[in-house]
């Protein structure tokens, strides 16, 4: 469903992604790991359509469409979701209101009828239970004054609400306590299906105990330098990334 070919992108003339190749099939879970600053969030942002990044080469196909040609909101409409590493605050706007608008905008994009207040509340209750989030949090200003973990949990809730085809989780596990990781993972697993895929960006093998990946990739210096099965994550946990430098030097 997602084919990234030789994707190159940068910001303000600085090259960050230097030719990414990655294919994700429906039903798969991919994990991306890699040292700080290697370009993981940049990849996520470019896929989501963040405009400050300039795509300088390559192509991305998503569900048969040229992803790079679509506006960020159209990408969301097509079913792409990004759980942000650093979710932003919007004072005075509650998550409930925000989600009501988002869900209905996406439905409009897909030509589906919008949900009325009662239907929306029903959907919301269902998803609240799924990710075990407190209603009070959802009535407060979006992310304002939320703890780190609350922000991440709110991202998982939004993902559940929007039921994306491809969810990209950018370090959604950092800041979560052990129980929360389990719940977040349960949320991810609950929306997992034959049609949907997930791309998990993480530093920790721990998350992958709960969301078991089909593939693990190592992103280093703007390139995927190593790919493997779930055992690669374990390996990395033990050896760290120091091997990369040696391998890269040889290459």
């Amino acid at each position, binding site marked *: 469903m997602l084919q990234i070919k030789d994707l190159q992108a940068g910001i303000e003339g600085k090259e960050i992604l230097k030719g990414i190749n990655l294919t994700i099939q429906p039903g798969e879970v991919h994990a991306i790991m890699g040292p700080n600053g290697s370009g993981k969030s940049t990849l996520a942002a470019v896929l*989501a*359509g*963040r*405009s*400050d990044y*300039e795509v300088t080469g390559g192509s991305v196909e998503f569900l048969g469409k040229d992803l790079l040609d679509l*506006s*960020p*909101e159209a*990408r*969301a*409409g097509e079913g792409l*979701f*990004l759980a*942000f590493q650093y*979710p*932003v*605050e*919007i*004072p*005075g*706007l509650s998550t409930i*209101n*925000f*989600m009501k*608008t*988002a869900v209905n*905008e*996406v439905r409009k*994009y897909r030509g589906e009828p919008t949900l009325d207040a009662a239907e929306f509340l029903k959907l919301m209750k269902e998803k609240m239970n799924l990710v075990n989030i407190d209603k009070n949090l959802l009535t407060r*200003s*979006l992310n304002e004054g939320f703890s780190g973990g609350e922000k991440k949990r709110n991202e998982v809730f*939004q993902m559940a609400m*929007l039921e994306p085809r491809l969810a990209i989780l950018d370090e959604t596990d950092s800041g979560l306590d052990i129980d929360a990781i389990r719940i977040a993972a349960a949320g991810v697993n609950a929306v997992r299906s034959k049609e949907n895929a997930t791309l998990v960006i993480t530093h920790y093998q721990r998350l992958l105990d709960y969301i078991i990946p089909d593939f693990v990739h190592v992103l280093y210096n703007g390139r995927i330098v190593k790919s493997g099965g779930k055992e690669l994550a374990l390996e990395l946990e033990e050896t760290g990334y120091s091997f990369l430098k040696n391998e890269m030097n040889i290459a």
Partner: protein
Amino acid sequence: MNDGLSTIEQQITSDYKYGFTSNLEADQAPKGLNEDIIRFISGRKNEPEWMLEWRLKAYRYWLKMEVPDWANIKYPAIDFQDIIYYSAPKQSKKLNSLDEIDPELRRTFEKLGISLDEQKRLSGVAVDAVIDSVSVATTFREQLGELGIIFCSISEAIQEHPELIKKYLGSVVPMTDNFYSALNAAVFTDGSFCYIPKGVRCPMELSTYFRINAENTGQFERTLIVAEDSSYVSYLEGCTAPMRDENQLHAAVVELIAMDHAEIKYSTVQNWYPGDKEGKGGIYNFVTKRGICAGVHSKISWTQVETGSAVTWKYPSCILKGDYSTGEFYSVAVTNHHQQADTGTKMIHLGKNTRSRIVSKGISAGVSHNSYRGLVSVAKNASNARNFSQCDSLLLGDRCGAHTFPYIEVKNNTAQVEHEATTSKIGEDQIFYCNQRGIDTETAVALIVNGFAKEVMNQLPMEFAVEAQKLLAITLEGSVG
């Protein structure tokens, strides 16, 4: 899009959605202002002699005054002889029912979204619609009458309740108060009068829609609300105007009087034509609004959502004379393109244990300028006065300006006066976050702006909060990318 701000600029392109002119045959005075014109106005309205004298006195005073120039606004000098001071839509006879209203006038109301059909009307709202200078329809009169509430045009009140008008007109905003209040006193043509008797809680929102219609017609509305002991009234003033090339002057005066334990809530949604993208045309809005908490434990609350006008000069104020009285001011002022707004409030603490609260939210886009100007004054004998002021500015783009001018005059050392101010920008990251959830930029701006203004919007009566939210969105359509 590599340059976020250029998209911000790009999107500042939306047009005024309520711009249209209706063809009502007008009965109007010749251009210009002199004593004969004032006699003409007074004559047209069949006014008693004392009213004419009052007008002439104001006019003679006005002649000696100068146009104020202290506000942070710029506009070409107004030629007061180039204005038509009286214009009434022609109506041959008194109407028995709404069905008899000129269909053109009805369509105008419909375009503005005002339904005069009582059945269709949002339940609980009485509308006194003002087109140009004459009040053309008043509904719910009888129901209010049973409670002893008077809600009518000021012209009618002059005829039918002269004792109340003589007692209160000009008692809060004297004709000598300022240039525009003197002008208004001389030439005011219509407006609303509202009287709530002792112990009565007005069961519905009272509402007036003002509208400027005939070309070159200045609007000089005069509103007077008196709430007797232990009464309550909530009043909403809303307006929109047709698109014009020439600048139009509006100089209204609003006076509120709250007796012991009385409460007046006055809400305004203002959406006059702001001029085009180049700043051409648009309404000049110079308003004097003031209320007096005359009695103990009385309360006056001003809420305003200001989205229109080319130039706004407006400071709804409270004189807190009664002990334990409370004054509130909640304001959202939005400026886009070349709009200029200099608005704020004055809280004058005279009585003991008086309280005031100011929440001002300024939103600027385009190359507009938005100023908050507020005075908190505590008199020598006003012990234990409390004020809290919160002034927040939100900038959309980097070519607009937000300014805050708080003035504090405290003559009693038991006073507690607090002032907080913030300035923020809509961030590209906030917009992108919304975009990523499937929300386009225009809707995202509306969500963010309404969030910013929420504390004030919450003060509006429910029926109008939704309308006001839409208005904010329309005004800022395309302000950020």
